[in-house]
């Protein structure tokens, strides 16, 4: 099977002032379709830099990166934008929705830059379907300030999915959420992954990483460990347990 992501000896050096910062020092990584990978590491481990390169927001200074079989390490700004639009869906820690814009319009936004030029009705239908996937079809005309944090993150996920990307990239998606909402979001990810969507997620929370299938730990710009997740958590069960525990507290 052709890997979605194929990193070979990726390096990233920042030239800032006197000293060169070597943020990523030779990372090689294959991620196959249908995988759910957590990239972990302490701050300064190079995980954000690596994510930016995987997301085509930044270019490596060394090595090659094949996304969906296409060498994207040498593309220019506009070509990168096109790749981001067609092949990658982003989910951010801060949700990054457009304020004073409805959920539906937020989800439609990536299609505005799509080269397929879908008709407006088709755009709306796809945005609606996307919102349905994350269980927010009823909130389509709500604006971000009328939605909870968890709902906002779902809108962001719907936006990431709307162009049917090969890869969903999540950067600390639960960083701004409480534990119950975090589990709910992980439930959404697990559901999408079960449906065949490849997800790469950056996190520094160990228990969040346990909802994925594979954990890659970075340190000092290199891969420290790369292993499958043992005793993987199921979001649905965890949510049920959490609710029972809350119930018990209330009864006592």
């Amino acid at each position, binding site marked *: 099977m052709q890997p979605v992501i194929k990193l070979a000896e990726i390096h990233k050096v920042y030239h800032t002032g006197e000293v060169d910062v070597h943020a990523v020092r030779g990372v090689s990584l294959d991620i196959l379709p249908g995988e759910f990978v957590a990239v972990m590491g302490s701050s300064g481990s190079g995980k954000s830099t690596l994510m930016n390169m995987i997301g085509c927001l930044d270019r490596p200074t060394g090595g090659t990166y094949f996304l969906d079989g296409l060498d994207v390490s040498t593309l220019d700004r506009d070509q990168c*934008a096109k790749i*981001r639009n067609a092949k990658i869906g982003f989910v951010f820690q801060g949700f990054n929705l457009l304020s004073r814009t409805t959920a539906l319009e937020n989800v439609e936004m*990536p299609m505005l830059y799509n080269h397929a030029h879908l008709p407006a009705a088709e755009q709306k239908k796809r945005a609606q379907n996307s919102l349905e996937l994350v269980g927010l079809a009823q909130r389509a005309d709500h604006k971000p300030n009328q939605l909870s944090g968890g709902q906002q993150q779902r809108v962001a996920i719907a936006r990431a999915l709307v162009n049917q990307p090969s890869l969903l990239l999540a950067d600390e998606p639960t960083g701004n959420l409480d534990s119950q909402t975090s589990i709910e979001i992980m439930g959404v990810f697990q559901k999408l992954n079960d449906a065949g969507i490849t997800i790469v997620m950056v996190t520094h929370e160990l228990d969040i990483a346990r909802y994925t299938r594979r954990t890659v730990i970075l340190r000092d710009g290199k891969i420290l460990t790369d292993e499958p997740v043992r005793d993987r958590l199921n979001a649905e069960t965890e949510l049920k347990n959490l609710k029972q525990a809350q119930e018990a507290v209330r009864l006592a």
Partner: protein
Amino acid sequence: MRILAPFKLAARALRRNKMRSLLTMLGVIIGVGSVIASVSITTGASKQVEDKVASLGQNVVTVFSGNFTSGGMRGGWGSAPTLTVEDTTAIKNEVANVVAVSPEVRDRMQILANGLNWNTQIQGESPDYPQIRDWDIANGAMFTDADVRSIAKVAVIGKTVVDQLFINQDPVGETLIIRNIPFKVVGVLESKGFNLFGQDQDDIVIIPYTSHMRRITKRIFVNSIMVQAASKDAINQVQDDITTLLRDRHKSAEQDFTVRTQLELMAMATSTTRIMSVLLGAIASVSLIVGGIGIMNIMLVSVTERTREIGIRMAVGARGRDILIQFLIEAVTLSAVGGIMGIALGMAAAKITSHFTGWPTLTPYAWIGIACVSSAGIGIVSGFYPAWKASRLDPIEALRYE
């Protein structure tokens, strides 16, 4: 991106900050408004002057006799007896593109009718005169070539003369005494009002030039010759040809006549209003430029404020050029809407000025077009730098921007 999508985006972004958008537009509104108002007022003024010049007649070329000099004494302009009726005939027969000519002889005299008297201008003309001056006969008819040949005692009179001598009476058919000679009134001219120099053009009695020269003043030279060219384009050619013809006929060393055209008079008369319109236009353009700077300023603030939005858009696949177009269209929308509101404001201001001062105002359609195009142009020029700045943002840094 689709064609209409960026306009929708721009409209939405501008609606989000209604007050700010309106204040930003105010610069352009005032700039365009003052351009339109000043152009309307000066165009109205020059139109008024042009109308006065046009009341002289259509495509008129006038030949004046030259200066009279005798033994070192120099008479004033037009004092020399040099133009003749034969010159008039020669012009009519030999110069191309001449449709009508009239030799003119003028004198002020006391006239009598109905036991009343009045001092007025007695003018000898040919029957072509009303056509040259574009002057209709209100009542009766103009005298004819037959009247000229027979040195007839007929007259066509102006409105003022009617008011003074024929009160509440139809003057056609009545008799008028000029220097003890009775003239029959055959026609009354339409009222033409005051000319460019403030003279009452209706205070006039027109008689055949032969009657004037033989019966009243007994002279052989005419004061001037009025010529009508076939078209506006032919005026200069007719002027040159008349000059050549008369120099040839008069055979004098010095040119003893002057040929003036309506175009020259028009240019002289409108020079003041032209200077005024250039000055006003220049001042108004400065305010338009200030409006443009206001737009640039606000667009720069807007780009900084929306850095994160730009980052999000870039992350989901907007190219630099998509962002550039988005902000450029916002700036153009601001200035174009401001421009349209400015046109309305300027026209209203001109109407109000006209209402209170009585000055005629006129908004030329061309200037409405110029105002639209230049306000859109100002949007492009002042919006380009902020939009370019937005399009060059690094998506990673833009996303991290707080």
